[in-house]
């Protein structure tokens, strides 16, 4: 089957074949492409970016991401979790707002440095 690697903007077109329980990949420019293809066939994983609400002035919402990948099938569960979080104070970039999400060892961290801007 054909896959497009999403690891980096190169977007390598991968030709993937599964034989005897092993995954064979052609078309990848680097090893990460092979790893991606293997995961995509067995347990597709995604890193997710989203928003959580805040009560801090000037920031109705703040951007967050998973600091690792979670199973693709759990993306909407993660979104539900994001809906329930409210940040109530200015946080520096990289602050953990939820740890070990959905039974993984992945955390949800902020990706914007909240400054009280001089407006």
């Amino acid at each position, binding site marked *: 089957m054909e896959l*497009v690697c999403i690891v*980096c*903007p190169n977007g390598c077109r991968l030709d993937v074949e599964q034989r005897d329980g092993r995954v064979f990949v052609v078309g990848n420019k680097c090893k990460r492409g092979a790893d991606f293809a293997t995961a995509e066939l067995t347990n597709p994983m*995604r890193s997710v*970016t989203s*928003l959580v609400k805040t009560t801090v002035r000037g920031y109705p919402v703040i*951007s967050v991401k998973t600091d690792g990948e979670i199973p*693709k099938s759990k*993306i909407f569960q993660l979104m539900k979790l994001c809906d329930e979080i409210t940040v109530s104070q200015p946080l520096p970039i990289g602050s953990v707002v939820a740890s070990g999400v959905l039974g993984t060892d992945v955390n949800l961290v902020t*990706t914007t440095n909240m400054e009280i801007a001089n407006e």
Partner: protein
Amino acid sequence: MKYDVAVIGGGPAGLAAAIKASEGGASVLLIEREARLGGILKQCIHDGFGVVRFGEKLSGPEYAYRFIERLKAANVQVSLFSFVTSAVKLSDTYKITYVCKDGVKYAECSKIILATGCRERTRNGISIHGDRCAGVYTAGAAQNLVNILGVMPGKRIVILGSGDIGLIMARRLTLEGAKVVGVYEAKSTPSGLTRNIHQCLHDFDIPLYLSKTVTRVFGQSRLEKVEISDVDERMRSIAGTEQLVDCDCLVLAVGLIPENELARTLNVPLNKATKGATVDQNCQTLVDGIYACGNALHVNDLVDYVSESGEIAGAHVTLQKTERNLLPITTEGKLLYVVPQMLDTNSDFGNVVMYFRASEELTNQRLTVTACGETIFSKTYAKLLPPEMERITVDFGKARALGELTVRLEDK
């Protein structure tokens, strides 16, 4: 106040340019029109930024943050929420007038780096007719509404244009609970990066319709439906193919245009293909002392290259002004454009960074750079797509004679 360099725009290009210029010893004023640095990256909360530069997948704000932190350490005067109202040439310097909350300010500088980014094409620019209802937004405006203001532009969404922002917004709005009915693209091939088609559309079963466009919008107060038509190979809608699609929001991701109003007032010649300034390998425009970088120069698809062009400009402004000897770099074959369009033979031309786009989807191509007919660079490409910009570095020093510079794309 007097500065060596004024950088206009505090997005990724301006940040990189200001840091580089400052690190090279120049006194730098960075003028940013918004209250926070980072430009459009502030609202690009998705990841995928910085893979080339940092080998990591960063979100837009994280990518910007890395530069903002470096900027803080550098000796750069930053003026936020400041808007340049005019830039005029004095005898040997430029006088910049800008307004900010403290009043009308003046700065004198010997060089200006334009890092003013780009703007989006609008519904009028692509001739969508019909009602004047709420719910029709450019992708950037929709992105701002969601990611900065925290509000939803609609619940049932049609996206016109398969450019990267359109694809990103399709995923973003889906994640936030909206139903994206489809992404419609007038061209016969997608405009965005292939990986974005994959991870933004396929992952969420969002259909992509090619060779179709929105021809009319309907709605009294909010958008109620849009008319979709097939288009022919010249992108004109075909009568009789109209279908109506119910939706309360139309997101337009129909292209970006370099923002060059200031360049225009400084009489900087612009290039028809890029809609940005014509520049040499140092990002210097045809007007001495005026530089252009980032998306103001040409619309990039990767921020890494936006920063790179900022750094090229930032590095060169610290050098002594010299008389330039500009040779045009011409293009041949199916090339949309090549940047830079000029080579200054009086400055370093050893490792010239060049960017190009193919004008159509091509396979098995060879790109050659020649000087006086002699090939000084050659590279083959299995596949080239117009949405995916390519970058090469060319050593013009290899040429025995510098003249008749040509970049040619041809079948292998």
